């Protein structure tokens, strides 16, 4: 898996995180680390470009989930804590699409995974880069 970063300017600055290759349990933490680096450097709007990501396991969903938490300025929970971590945090908001993290061009199979897990309810999914950047 390769990760690259590009900066774009819409109404607000948007970082584009491009994920190429396969995303699974062997490397999903690299994505979270990169997102944390971006957040620490000031990124507040992130577009995840999935056009060249040909495989994603449920660990990729964990990465996306963690990125949302990071971009909201909240610590990324420990995946092994499961439900207890979230109940302890006491969150009761956060329904609907996430305003700070959006997805670009997931391949059909990956889009299917997002649908099967209902994760597509939480992410705007764009097919055009300019439109995606302008949507933030």
């Amino acid at each position, binding site marked *: 898996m390769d990760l690259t970063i590009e900066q774009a300017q819409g109404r607000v600055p948007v970082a584009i995180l491009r994920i190429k290759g396969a995303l699974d349990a*062997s490397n999903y933490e690299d994505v979270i680390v990169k997102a944390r680096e971006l957040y620490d450097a000031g990124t507040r709007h992130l577009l995840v470009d999935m056009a060249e990501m040909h*495989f994603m396991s449920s*660990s990729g*969903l964990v990465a996306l989930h963690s990125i949302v938490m990071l971009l909201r300025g909240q610590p990324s929970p420990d995946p092994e804590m499961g*439900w207890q971590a979230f109940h302890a945090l006491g*969150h009761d908001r956060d329904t609907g699409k996430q305003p700070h993290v959006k997805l670009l061009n997931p391949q059909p199979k990956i889009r299917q*995974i997002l649908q099967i897990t*209902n994760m597509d309810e939480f992410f705007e999914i764009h097919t055009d880069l300019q439109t995606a950047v302008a949507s933030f």
Partner: protein
Amino acid sequence: MDASSSLRVAAELSELETIHRFVEQHATALRIDPSAIDDLLLVVNEIATNSILHGYRKQPGTIEVAMRPIGDAVEICVRDHAPPFDPTQALSPDLHVPLAQRPLGGMGVHLARQLIDSLTYHITPDGWNELTLVKYRIVPHLPQEEPDGSNN
């Protein structure tokens, strides 16, 4: 296991790629529908990941993968020697809670249930966990040939 279609690797996350290549190569050789191959790759990855992280808990171990065609289906067995655990008994995740109230994990078995036609667990006589998954209708649909030789 049939040696011609089985794989034995260390229970390490770095071996997920090896398992991926094994399933992909054998599924392609069996002329399985590409969409079904994608489903198999994902589910085997999820099962192996669960074995490494939750079965062996990142301690040293072995994972075996074997696959064979059965009629218009393919059967894949994933075996490990971690403490006995039956993931088919795991509760389905609640997919209708807000994102912040969702657990980070727990989707692997859900995906397997959605993408695979049969997922069964048993402990082998020598004490291994064995998950057997079956995917039916693996052959791509081909247009039927008319008696005069034309396709419709």
